[in-house]
């Protein structure tokens, strides 16, 4: 099932489509209730294994993300890694703004934790 959440001042835009198979997360992330916000996203990612097949494109472009959202995002990466383990290719593109060391480093941290995923970090202006 496709998922689309529009961005707010404090939560990112999130979309998961099946045709083509793509996950996009972009924007700010400091929701008042992190588990309420990310719960449905984590569920949707976890159900990919049974509901989808083939290459999954992931694009992440965060501006500010708080530590509790980072933990939720870790769960999302675990779901992506489980999808990979089920025999599918997962390609992550992590975008950081050109002068944003924090997001650049966070990308490196996730890449380090999920070394089996195809993971590229790119800077954009």
């Amino acid at each position, binding site marked *: 099932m496709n998922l689309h959440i529009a961005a707010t001042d*404090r939560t990112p835009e999130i979309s998961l489509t099946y045709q083509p198979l793509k996950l996009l997360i972009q924007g700010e992330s*400091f929701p*008042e209730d*992190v*588990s309420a916000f990310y719960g449905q996203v984590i569920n949707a990612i976890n159900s990919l294994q049974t509901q989808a097949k083939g290459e999954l494109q992931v694009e992440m472009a965060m501006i*500010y993300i*708080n*530590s*509790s959202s*980072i*933990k939720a995002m*870790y769960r999302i990466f675990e779901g992506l890694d489980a999808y990979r383990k089920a025999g599918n290719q997962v390609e992550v593109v992590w975008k950081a703004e050109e*002068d*944003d*060391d*924090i997001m650049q*480093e966070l990308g490196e*941290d*996730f890449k*380090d*934790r999920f070394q089996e995923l195809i993971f590229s970090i790119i800077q954009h202006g």
Partner: protein
Amino acid sequence: MELSHAIELRNSLRKNRVIMAYNGTVSDELMLTLADMLKTRLLAHDDSKRSKLIFSVFMEGVQNLIWHGKENDDDHGMILITEVGNEITILCGNRILKSETHDLKERLDRIAGADKETIRQMYRDGMAESGEHEGPGAGLGLLEIARRSTHPINYTFDDVDDRSVDFILSATI
């Protein structure tokens, strides 16, 4: 308040170069308001790299206060920001139980004594942990603050009574 006390307080704020001061319950709404004010000020004074570091430390510090305040019905929150030369210091305070200080102190000492590379490794390990009792950030917040600060984090515990302590965490960027 006596006006003479107001003058003393003002003088003290000036002497310590305080640019933002808050005392009382720290709510989510307050955080959003202060974050907006801080963002506006940072954009006017600092480059965007530095602004992001300051903003990140501020947000983690304040979110920590919100979470602990909610859990413990604490209205002793404190937020202070000072600017001395080109250094911004963010101080966050709240009232905690004496029984909590031991673990917290141990954790803080470990972080304060670690170099940047060790902090980063602790951070990477912490991303996977989900100790709900430590708050939604489950300990990652302190590491985030330490990681973004240009000096080791500083802290103090100020005894209130037999049961409680006022905790203050300070980070400089």
